[in-house]
């Protein structure tokens, strides 16, 4: 179960990953990067047997500070990742599903097969929602939220 606090292991691993990524931003050619990445791994491995958590936390803090001073000002970010060049690029084309209800009949006539079955699909979705919500233990974590756009609050409270 995930909590708000990170374990020491998680912090160390996150530091390792981001230092490798920034190293990749600095050392552009793969052979040079591989060499320095092995050196970095060796540095982490040297201190992995430390049992005293106080000392380990101090080493982690020193590591974070070293990362901060040596980080790359423009680290390589994958294009689709947050901060990348094509992140959220196609959000403006993502129209919500209910917009289909507002199409003009002449536009709906261009897709007769889909629209003839659309009402049926909507009914099916409403009926199966409660079952799926129960299956995923949805209600336990979201007691205050209205679980479905179709059901009213009374139904939710009844089922609790």
């Amino acid at each position: 179960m995930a909590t708000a606090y990170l374990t020491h292991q998680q912090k160390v691993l996150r530091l390792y990953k981001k230092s490798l990524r920034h190293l990749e931003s600095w050392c552009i050619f793969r052979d040079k990067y591989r060499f320095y990445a092995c050196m970095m791994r060796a540095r982490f491995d040297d201190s992995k047997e430390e049992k005293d958590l106080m000392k380990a936390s101090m080493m982690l803090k020193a590591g974070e500070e070293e990362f901060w001073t040596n980080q790359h000002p423009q680290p390589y970010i994958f294009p689709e990742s947050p901060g990348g060049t094509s992140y959220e690029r196609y959000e403006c084309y993502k129209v919500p599903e209910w917009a289909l209800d507002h199409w003009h009949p002449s536009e709906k006539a261009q897709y007769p097969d889909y629209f003839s079955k659309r009402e049926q699909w909507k009914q099916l979705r409403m009926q199966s929602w409660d079952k799926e919500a129960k299956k995923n233990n949805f209600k336990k974590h979201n007691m205050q939220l209205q679980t479905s756009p179709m059901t009213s609050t009374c139904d939710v409270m009844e089922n609790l």
Partner: protein
Amino acid sequence: MHPTSLMMTSSLIIIFALLIFPVLSTFTPTTKTPDWATTHVKTSIKLSFFISLLPLFIFLNEGAETIITSWTWMNTTCFDINLSLKFDQYSIIFTPIALYVTWSILEFASWYMHADPNMNRFFKYLLIFLISMLILVTANNMFQLFIGWEGVGIMSFLLIGWWSGRADANTAALQAVLYNRVGDIGLIFAMAWMATNLNSWEMQQIFIASKDFDLTFPLLGLILAATGKSAQFGLHPWLPAAMEGPTPVSALLHSSTMVVAGIFLLVRMSPLLENNQIALTTCLCLGALTTLFTATCALTQNDIKKIAAFSTSSQLGLMMVTIGLNQPHLAFLHICTHAFFKAMLFLCSGAIIHSLNDEQDIRKMGGLHHLTPFTSSCLTIGSLALTGTPFLAGFFSKDAIIEALNTSHLNAWALTLTLLATSFTAIYSLRVVFFVSMGHPRFNSLSPINENNKSLINPIKRLAWGSIIAGLILTSNMLPLKTPIMTMTPLLKLAALIVTVIGLLLALELASLTSKQHQTSPNLALHHFSNMLGFFPSIIHRFSPKINLMLGQLIANQLVDQTWLEKVGPKAITTFNLPLIITTSNSQQGLIKTYLAFFLLTITLAIILTMS
């Protein structure tokens, strides 16, 4: 009517009609076919280009220029605003170039934006932009120029924010509008000055009537306008941010056409600038600073489009330097040659980006010479033209500018900065070619990369031809307005070439160092200065708004709420009255019976005294 002038006038009117017709046809309710963009828009621009060659050849043959005043728009007794098109040397040469470059970019865009659901709208926006640009370039009065100026600004906003779901794109579009607005203040001020002092917005009348005036203020206004539109230092951050837009937008607007509008304005107004030393010195110093600063920023960028954007800004600085040298003709020549190779650099970058699934970082490119030989060859040709390799397009304009700079008796500081920027140009151009084309691929082989598409190859091929021969053609056919200095020492003559070669060798040395194991922590201060763009955006975009907001908070909170509404009003009354109240109430001992007895005693005494 004389056949020459008839041919000129009618062909130019036909060009405008051809370009406006597809835009007007979108206002009808009929739905457009999916390939409306290629069948209508691209065809209209292609036809317009071929028609625009007619006035060009007439001009080259006979030197015929024409001014068409077709409609008296708003005329009062002493002030006229007409619809007036001026086809002089500058607009006659620039119009075919702009149409040629736009034709190539639209053909490329039909490949690049193929999967976009709103491709027709995209092409419509590009067409409206082109119309505004041509209105700007052919304007004979300031009002029409302002219409074109604002038009290109608005279309830039719409096109940069094309992918409006992206927060960065919206920020960049807003940035472009705001920075251009600051420049527009200068233009409006200059227009107001001209309207009140020279009583006209027509260019001919302005040139004649301004002979006895001190033109420093309006010229500084025009320089401010050029600073905003052409991304000179101080109002430059919008140009690299504008790379958020699709690559055809960057290629058309932010390299060849829109950003040169500021320089074009100064070229048009060059008769006013000629005699004003303050304005010329401002242009020279601003241009020199811009060209060096942006070339420094380009040295360490890793996004291929940002490198090209800073390169554009640096070349615009060079054009501004040329204007400061009182050589508007050379600046115009550089505008024309720059359009070809810069648009080609952007198209090659776009082809590479699209092939690598939207990868823009040069750290993850490489070995593309084997995978896309045509594109990488054209990238190399464009880079060589940019650095001023002898006898390519850029050489004729850039070398002429640096020769003029070397032989002029102006300040050596501007000269040093410009030469340094020229060597930096060679460095970052080699850096791009090294990381993109040479070596081994540093990306995953996700999709088959090929360039077997005619709509990709033909535009780049056309622009490559332009980059190679345009310089020669333009210099052979355009007469220089000022006599160039013909004699100079060999060192001065070869200065540009020498600094370029030094830059190239330095870049080769640095590039070979990247693959060697070197000392692990070098001095990073210079790298960070260059990479963070001189910290200019960090300071201006964050620091000064923060100061303003904190001042606002201070005023609202401390001054108004705490001081005027509390301390001066109610609290002051409290602090004044409280000691009095305390003294008064403390002096009361609460001896009610005693007070009552004394009261009755004194009342009785008073009654007895009055009675007797």
